[in-house]
């Protein structure tokens, strides 16, 4: 990419950059790391546009690069330790409220709900977490998730099923 011509990417990445940020944020659990992952992912993607083979949409390709960058960053920064410290702050919350299918969960504000979900997400294996986040946070269809992760749609469904089971069990037992 030539100097001065780099700003073109802003327009075509605008459609998906918020989704990319949300995926990274859910995978990593905090804004600062998510922004670093998005930056890393965008640079990788844009310096390797030749790797985009148009078998999938640019959005799914970019989400693939960014979510992989987020997972790499999480491994480098010891994500689980960071989350366990953060989780201590919400230990007193009544997590069982989350599983009651009525309005009682409304007692927990959204910020607290997000923290609890981030905490619960860390109980998932990396493939389960990535599958769940790409579907739930980026709004990708099963087929798109399968394309991003290079797995079958059956595997997507299986991982989503077990991811939800684990999340529910975690929230119920906390």
């Amino acid at each position, binding site marked *: 990419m030539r100097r001065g011509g780099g700003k073109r990417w*802003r327009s075509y990445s605008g459609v998906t950059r918020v989704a990319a940020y949300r995926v990274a944020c859910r995978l990593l659990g905090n804004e600062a790391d998510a922004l670093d992952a998005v*930056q890393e992912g*965008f640079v990788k993607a844009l310096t390797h546009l030749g790797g985009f083979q148009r078998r999938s949409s640019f959005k799914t390709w970019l989400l693939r690069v960014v979510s992989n960058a987020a997972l790499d960053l999480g491994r480098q920064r010891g994500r689980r330790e960071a989350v366990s410290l953060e989780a201590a702050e919400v230990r007193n919350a009544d997590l069982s409220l989350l599983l009651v299918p009525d309005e009682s969960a409304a007692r927990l504000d959204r910020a607290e709900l997000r923290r609890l979900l981030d905490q619960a997400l860390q109980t998932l294996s990396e493939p389960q977490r990535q599958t769940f986040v790409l579907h*739930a946070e980026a709004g990708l269809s099963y087929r798109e998730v399968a394309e991003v992760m290079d797995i079958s749609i059956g595997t997507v469904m299986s991982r989503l099923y077990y991811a939800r089971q684990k999340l529910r069990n975690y929230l119920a037992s906390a």
Partner: protein
Amino acid sequence: MGPHKREDREKIASPCQTWLTAYVDGELTDEERARVEAWLTRNPEVRAEVEAQQHLKALCERCPVPGPDALAWDDVLARVESALEAASTENLQPRLRPLRPSPPQSVALGRLGCGGSGPSAGALAWPSACPTR
């Protein structure tokens, strides 16, 4: 095998379980959804499972990740541009894990491996214990 391939010890959900997940996510055709709903009316315990999944899904939707702070986002964009320019001028490209090309999806699925006349052979055969035709 790459990091995202199915792990050797990864548990595989049963066809019934995956159909319920697809039902919750709205990934079934009208015909498939009708069959699942007929199944649910005969199996209250399965309906409870569906409702639990729906509740968790709604919970996630209630608290989406907020967008980044505008200033922080501008900073990211500026850093991306700076990195791109540096890569261009210095011919330094980050070392990358090669992206595997996506293999053609063998699962036609209708959307879930099912044609108009019901689940096709392959990834998702309609299990006998699941909703019947």
